[in-house]
């Protein structure tokens, strides 16, 4: 279903940006209010509820024991899946994941995997035979712009909240000890920061209105050290070299700011 943005809204948002202003009165490099809770779903081994503005995602992790991939026999598996629920927006439809949902899953996965958030090698139980497979499921329940930053922030929080049972190997059997739960091995807190390009300006954390009229979008994943671990450009408008370099340096400060919300 196509979502129609009235021309008048497009014009008013663009005109505000021209004057250095935004519809909700924020500065160009200012996030909306962020809230993050962990351990919200008891049946999930790890969980988080994240809100950026009115955008809201519930995230749960489910570790299971499975077989590693043949090319990485001593590495655990992380599987990220996103559901853009039809309750989250009038133009989201139920059914198999569409391209936006797949992009969100893949970009979140990329930021977490390439940022080496989880030490996947420590999730190996028996090389080539059994490893932990961690399913990371993102349930988008309210869509008000900037899903990517919310998705990565919530996912890192949910992973940090995840506990798995300790494993022992006795006579060729894996014994799971649910009385001694250990946290997932976390060695990095890579986060993502998204900019929207409207009328030549790059503004952080686009709201729904801004996302609907933006020409381009750039998401930047950064590690604690400030190294770039993932990027994704979206939208049809091009970006130039100076713009990109400028927002990369802003992203460094802003991901550090976001990190203070993690427990």
């Amino acid at each position: 279903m196509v979502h129609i943005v009235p021309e008048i809204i497009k014009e008013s948002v663009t005109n505000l940006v021209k004057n250095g202003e935004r519809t909700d009165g924020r500065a160009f490099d200012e996030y909306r209010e962020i809230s993050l809770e962990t351990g919200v779903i008891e049946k999930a081994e790890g969980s988080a509820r994240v809100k950026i503005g009115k955008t809201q995602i519930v995230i749960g992790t489910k570790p299971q024991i499975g077989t590693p991939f043949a090319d990485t026999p001593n590495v655990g598996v992380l599987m990220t899946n996103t559901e853009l629920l039809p309750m989250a927006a009038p133009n989201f439809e139920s059914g198999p994941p569409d391209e936006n949902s797949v992009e969100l899953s893949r970009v979140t996965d990329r930021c977490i995997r390439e940022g080496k958030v989880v030490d996947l090698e420590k999730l190996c139980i028996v090389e080539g035979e059994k490893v932990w497979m961690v399913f990371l499921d993102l349930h988008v329940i309210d869509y008000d712009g900037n899903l990517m930053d919310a998705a990565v922030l919530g996912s890192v929080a949910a992973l940090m909240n995840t506990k798995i049972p300790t494993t022992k190997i006795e006579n060729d059997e894996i014994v799971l000890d649910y009385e001694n739960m250990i946290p997932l091995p976390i060695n990095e807190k890579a986060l993502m920061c998204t900019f929207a390009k409207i009328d030549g300006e790059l503004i952080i954390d686009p709201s729904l209105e801004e996302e609907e009229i933006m020409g381009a979008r750039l998401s930047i994943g950064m590690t604690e050290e400030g190294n770039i671990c993932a990027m994704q450009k979206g939208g049809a408008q091009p970006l130039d070299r100076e713009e990109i370099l400028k927002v990369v340096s802003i992203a460094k400060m802003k991901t550090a700011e976001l990190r203070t919300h993690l427990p």
Partner: protein
Amino acid sequence: MIIIITNTNLNTGTETSARADKRAFDELRNLKIEAGVLERADGSAYLEMGGNKVLAAVYGPRELFVRRLMQPNRAVLRCKYNMAPFSVDDRKRPGPDRRSVEISKITSDALSPAVFLEKFPRSTIDVYIEVLEAEGGTRCAGITAASVALADAGIPMRDMVVACAAGKSDGNVVLDLSEVEDKEGEADLPIAMMPRTGEITLLQMDGDLTEEEFGKALDLAIGGCKKINEEQKKAIKNRYGE
């Protein structure tokens, strides 16, 4: 060959003769309902009952794009019941299965009689129910939450619809089965009703009950519905005032 074994059993163990969670036979689990929790949806509600966490959202009345479903004289009320992959002990694969399709259908049938559908010809009212955490009785929790979400959306209704289950566990007829009681019990009888008129809009049952036990269970469930209905009304009043 490696066999995985688990050396502790986590959440089973109903060796007590009374109810596992120490409730009286006619006692509901802890209940919390909040209306208007989502920004985008026209109406929404969040419900916690025992270990259940359920979110319901309503869109509409709006244009129905699926022509073949369109009714010339009234709106259609479509429901989608969905469980989050992390809502149960073993991860549920995303997407509809036979169980959720059936629950979607009976939820739609349970809610429809309460809504003045004839006021909105050729349109649709969409109800989405998301189970974030499941602990027995999610279909009832979903219907109860959906009805609050419909009211929150300002959709004209004859009455709220409220759902509750009764059943038989360890030989006793009890109200509001928990997950363990549902799995290990002898019978489950979920109902939905419009409390003002007492009309029953959903009735399912599985297991084994005598006629006498059935009568007892039905009365228990109706009593449970009436109590839950008070919480539904409170949720709406909390949001909109008296």
